[in-house]
């Protein structure tokens, strides 16, 4: 039915510089992922990079999803917002500012709040991996004309 094993996804550029979120977990693992790409080098200054990935904003959010009949919170929705753009070092935009929004639902109960904190961290980490996958995929089909 037409499926074939995925070929090597090559970036249409040789060097990339990531600007923004230098110390956040997402920034660190995104840079580690890009460093792992064979045919593209992660450089550490904007000048000699064919492509500059600007991480404009990264925002977690926790919103009440549903209540119990006693008026206590039963579920939260955890959102991860990532806004980024791709340009070259003299400002020509390849990809205008784009926002990816992911969300996960987490149940909540006051009596297990300490374990919920650990679970929340796990879900945010999972969304972070998903966000990085999507950014890498956008970079691999980037139109550079």
């Amino acid at each position: 039915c037409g499926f074939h094993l995925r070929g090597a996804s090559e970036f249409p550029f040789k060097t990339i510089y990531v600007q923004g979120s230098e110390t956040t977990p997402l920034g660190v693992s995104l840079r580690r992922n890009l460093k792992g790409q064979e045919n593209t080098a992660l450089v550490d200054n904007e000048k000699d990079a064919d492509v500059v990935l600007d991480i404009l904003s990264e925002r977690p959010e926790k919103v009440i999803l549903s209540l119990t009949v006693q008026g206590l919170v039963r579920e939260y929705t955890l959102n991860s917002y990532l806004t980024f753009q791709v340009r070259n070092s003299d400002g020509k935009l390849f990809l205008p500012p784009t926002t990816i929004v992911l969300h996960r639902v987490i149940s909540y109960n006051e009596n297990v709040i300490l374990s919920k904190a650990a679970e929340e961290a796990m879900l945010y980490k999972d969304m972070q991996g998903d966000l990085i996958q999507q950014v890498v995929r956008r970079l691999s089909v980037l139109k550079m004309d």
Partner: protein
Amino acid sequence: GDIATAAATSTDVTDVSSAPVDTEAVAQRPEDSNKITARAEQMTGRPDRILNFDGQVEIVRGPSTLNADTAEYHAIEDLVMAHGNVQMLRNKDCYSGDTFQMQMDTGSGYLTNPVYQLEKNNARGFATRMDFIDKDQSVVEQGVYTTCEGTKPDWYLRSSRLDLDTGRDEGVATNGVVFFKDVPILGSPWMSFPISDARRSGVLPPEFSSTTTGGAELTVPYYFDIAPNRDATIFPNYISKRGEQLGGEFRYLDSTYSGLLHAEITPQDAADNNDTRYSISYLHNQTLLPGLTMSLNYNRASDDNYAIDYSHSITQSSQHLLPQMFTLGYGQSFWNVGLTMLNYQVLQIADVPLTDQIQKPYQIMPQLLAHAGKINDFGGFDWSIDTQYTNFRSSTGEDSERFVVQPQISYPITGTYYFITPKFSYHLSEYRLGETLATSSNSSDPVLSVPTFSLDSGLYFEREANLFGRDLTQTLEPRLFYVNTPYRDQTNVPIFDTGIADINFAQIFTENRFSGQDRVGDANQLTAALITRAIEMDGQERMRFAIAQRLSFSQPLVTDTITPFYSTTIIEGNNSITTTHSSLPSRSDLIFAASGKLTNTLTTDALWQYSQSQQSTAQLTYGFKWQPAPMQVINAEYRFQNISEVDPEGMKQIDVSAQWPLAPRWYGVARANYSIQDRRILDGLIGFEYKQDCWIFRAVAQRYLVPSTVAEITSSSTTSLFFQLELNGLSKIGTNPLQALKRSIPGYQPINQPTTQPGYQQNNF
């Protein structure tokens, strides 16, 4: 006076070809930029002194164009004077009046009985006189300011003096009175307003709302724009049932630190025998040194019912555990260490039976953790070691210590279309229990040491496909994940920070079904999953379907309860039926999930988890969001959670919300989160927005359940009303319901903001 329209006719200034002097010799000089081009029926005078223009005069200089019956140009002072239906267009702001004078260089001058129309917010008005201070600032005397079209504006601000600053987008009115439909609704000796929503100090328009717990409330906030990176808001508040309250919020932001302090105090709460009631919330984050970060999150309320009595929103009223946390962290490339101190202030629900009360979580005083880990180290291994020391202090003040070491090592074999990752991890924890815990778990220092092996593998297939009428790349990602963790009796290990994690696509590919460090779930389990994604040409993930089958080859035995079963009671009519359930996890689960855009306007999310071994649906949620056009959205979602030991009542809810135009200029907003099993609306909202070209009126009523402060009644509902009159370009009067609307109605868009594409929501599992 009639509001002038900005009809600056475009005149083609005849080309003044040069005199016999050959033009090449005269290069384009810098001062040509402020040269003055004039046109008139007659010009007389001495060019180096005073030139008079008469008859349909038009003078153009830089961005300004002046039309008048007659005009004079004083060359020495570079000054223009004009008389007789003067009209001046500067950038896109248009002024007309009788007599006009302006020093062209600095832009200072005046215009008598001006009628003005500014580009920003379509602001306009008329006055007796207007003084231009410079290119951006002007002072309007005895003037009227509005943003409404036409000669009979719905609202206008009349003030003795109005300082307009289009450069800094600020307007300051002295002795201003706002008339709405010719009825004065707001007066203030001094009022600043945004020509656009930039920050400026000043009295903010009053806010009034009403809640069942507090009655009618009136707040007149004052905003201090202290510095570009510091501002504060003071809001004196009068609550009819409770008396005066003073609130304040101070925000600061710097390169290495930022923070927010919010405090409110009611010296004498009339509804609570005149007690003093307060709440404080202080957030502070700081990078002390590169890599060394500190954060403080301290919240405190004066008493248990504060959240309910003083809540304006559900986020406040449902907050019954106030975190008081301090963290310190230092990290380098492959290791980091951290210190955490954490306590929760419990806002207990009023005298409900002990079993329903909120138990105070253990205080973490302190927790030290260290993490070190490298990937692709010595020949392709990924390894990491997490060590953690925690001192748990019970509500009785008894300390118990826990020391945990978790080394893990894996060897990821990855290619472009496959990955195989074997992983060994080990959990070693030792406890020094406090006296009461030691007796109840009949061992004072239990030890838990459990190895875990997991093998994760997957393939990536792709094909070009035409789905949903578009050319897409469809992926097919089979994945196999095997976990083997031997059983270890953990009944003598008390529970400090552990619970069963929700089952979802993130959790089913983790080794431990518990989150926290006190339980390592035994497992001999295989999870087979198949994910298919539809990816647009630009790389955007449009749709995602996934199905996973989890199979335990042996019944998992580790639970986080003392007894391996739990009981639930259901009230049927007047008798209640109690049933007991095993708290052992199900042996096999089928999970299906879908999320993404079916069409450009219809997105859907669905998750279904069916336990084959218990022949029951554990959880089922499905919903859709239909957003055919900006400011038009309908969301509907069904959510079912089966009873579980953490959630003995289970949940069966329908959540419907919408923002929909009801009639020209009328927009309806509504939400109902209805609990089927309780046959009650847990969280409801209804309201409308009426939009005119220069003002919007919003009325929103919100009703949500809050824990009862009265015994026996499980919960009472709080209704809060929001009224708001937003005068475009002037200010918002009344409480701002936008926060509540955005929270209750996913996809809600304020009706006066430029309409942007609805946010692209996706991937809910």
